[in-house]
């Protein structure tokens, strides 16, 4: 009997240690990047001996619920992804996430990263995450069509509008935009807001600017006019990427990561051009909306050697290269190869114009308001009249005011 027990103990120990063989789980909700993350995981195993095991959740709600509940019960995962902005502030305030000041010191010192990349992840002066994705929101366009119609890349708002008019006159639709998956309503809203009233952009999300203020009304007026002129593709389409690929729209306002989706849909990489939408007022400083997906480490994780090794690999040049090549994602590592032509062009544009970064509305808005407000914006897109706009603005402000009154 004793021998049996001993034998069992040995096997369990061996089995246990085999499972411990240097693996780190990365929890995330971006299942569409599972394969790409696996590539990085394998590469990490090769170089550092620690394998990153990507563990996806099918949808954002469940993922949020899982992380929230884990933290509430004191079992925060060592390594996981999150969102920047308000959700990030909430996460940091739980005290369960480790500050990564030291890691960033090295990253900046190595010259691979600029200070600006760190800014997105700073709360109260300390950075608490490293980038999984740093995507700028840009206008990708159909290069061959532009050449055919003799349109050059717009550098001013007037040129931008003129381009749309030329395209429309030629019988094509200038822009692709849909309400697919229920979250895209904010894309044009935020961009137009930034281009028309940059000073009010941030105020939307700290309660100082109302959603039915004059600035917002101007945005909706412009947006509604564009729809009235027939400049947008059918918002009810459930195949936004395919719409662009099939030529249903000449310009596509979206995050850089869509490049990979476009090439997968059959668009040749050479046919995709990109520019940052110009401001309506030429004297306003250049700006670009940035989406940052952070990777965070728990207070337990920072003491774990494997977790830190995995993290450092991910942000290193090699890691960034593997990730960039697999997914087309830029993470801010300037020493790494730009994943594709779009990213390098955007890098160049930003450097040339010294564009300032603005946080995406999706992350900046208080999480409790996010779903309801974007639903209203979707509603506008489906019936883009000023009448609907007034109703939408009123509803959004009611929710907004109620939220801030409760704080």
């Amino acid at each position, binding site marked *: 009997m004793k021998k049996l027990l001993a034998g069992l103990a040995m096997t369990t120990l061996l089995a246990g240690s085999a499972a411990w063989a240097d693996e780190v789980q990365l929890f995330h909700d971006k299942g569409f990047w599972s394969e790409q993350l696996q590539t990085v995981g394998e590469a990490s195993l090769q170089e550092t001996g620690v394998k990153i095991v990507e563990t996806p959740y*099918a*949808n954002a709600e469940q993922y949020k619920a899982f992380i929230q*509940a884990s933290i509430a019960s004191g079992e925060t995962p060592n390594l996981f992804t999150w969102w920047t902005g308000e959700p990030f502030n909430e996460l940091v305030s739980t005290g369960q996430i480790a500050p990564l000041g030291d890691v960033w010191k090295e990253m900046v010192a190595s010259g691979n990263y600029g200070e600006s990349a760190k800014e997105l992840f700073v709360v109260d002066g300390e950075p608490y995450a490293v980038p999984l994705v740093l995507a700028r929101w840009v206008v990708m366009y159909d290069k061959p069509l532009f050449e055919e119609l003799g349109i050059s890349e717009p550098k001013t708002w007037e040129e931008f509008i003129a381009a749309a008019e030329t395209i429309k006159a030629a019988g094509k639709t200038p822009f692709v935009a849909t309400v697919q998956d229920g979250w895209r309503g904010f894309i044009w809203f935020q961009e137009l807001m930034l281009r028309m009233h940059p000073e009010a952009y941030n105020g939307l999300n700290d309660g100082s600017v109302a959603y039915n203020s004059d600035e917002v009304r101007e945005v909706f007026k412009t947006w509604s006019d564009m729809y009235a002129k027939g400049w947008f593709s059918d918002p009810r389409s459930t195949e936004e990427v395919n719409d662009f690929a099939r030529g249903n729209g000449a310009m596509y306002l979206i995050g850089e990561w869509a490049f990979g989706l476009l090439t997968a849909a059959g668009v040749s990489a050479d046919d995709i051009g990109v520019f940052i939408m110009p401001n309506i007022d030429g004297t306003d400083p250049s700006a670009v909306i940035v989406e940052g997906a952070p990777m965070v480490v728990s207070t337990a994780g920072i003491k774990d050697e494997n977790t830190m090794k995995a993290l450092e690999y991910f942000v290193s040049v090699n890691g960034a290269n593997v990730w960039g090549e697999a997914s087309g994602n830029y993470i801010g590592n300037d020493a790494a190869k730009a994943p594709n032509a779009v990213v390098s062009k955007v890098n160049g544009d930003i450097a040339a114009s010294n564009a300032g970064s603005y946080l995406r509305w999706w992350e900046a808005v208080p999480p409790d308001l996010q779903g309801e407000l974007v639903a209203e914006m979707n509603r506008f897109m489906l019936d883009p009249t000023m009448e609907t706009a007034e109703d939408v603005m009123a509803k959004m402000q009611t929710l907004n005011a109620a939220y801030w009154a409760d704080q």
Partner: protein
Amino acid sequence: MAVDLNTLDFDEIARKEAARHRGRRWKVAVALLFSLVWVVPFYFLAISIFKSSTEYASNPPLSLPAGLSPIAENAQRAWELGNMGQSMLNSGFYGTLGAALAVFFAAMAAFAITRIDLPWKNGWFMLIFAGTVFPFQMYLIPLFFGYQKLGLLNSHLGMLLFYTAICVPFPTLVLRNFMSGLSREMDEAARMDGAGEFTVFFRVVLPNTVGPMIAVFLLQFTWIWNDMLFSTVLGNRLETRSIMNALLIFQGSYSSIGPNIVLTAALIASVPSLILFFLLRRHFMQGLQVQQA
């Protein structure tokens, strides 16, 4: 009864007979038409699963497919992308074991309620059946937190426990009704021969209850197989995901997966239920009949 042939009007009878035939044929035609309209939604499924992704993207959605071959590739992509193999295994495991255990436990409880001189019989029954009276939403949040605390979240055991529990009340109702209708002579005979209650249960009552047990097993298996809500909340990790939950991955934000793959996946996910139905149709119907009692 003797019929006086002279009083029968054969023409009248023949005319009525012909009318009945026409009526029947007309009925069949209507039924046929109705059935066709009923299955029209499957048309889109039927044409899309045979298109490759590029074919789908470059042609109008309702155009006929070029050939039948792309379905193999669609199936393969759906299988891999949706992790369908693992999910089907999970659902199969939960369904078979969960439903089987639930039905067995229900039989035991029904036996106690109908065959044992139990004080407060109806009370015990109501206690068990109360589990089914509430809408599912009431279980979600507490179970989520409870499982989190107990470490059962995203575990096979946790999913199995839940599926078994929720599948117990209904079979208890059905089997109780059935067992109270079973004659007690055999039990009494066995007891007089000195058999203990367990023997009575296993050797006498259970063998006679097999019919309804299979019927409710099928119903509960189908329920578990079709579940999406509880799998997303309690077992969303890849390893423990159910098949219907896995189907949702194609709805992801940045996915570039076309309807041809999504519908192929939906079809594959439905195949086991369909097979089960056709094999055991009669039991299904009988099971529903028992409900009447």
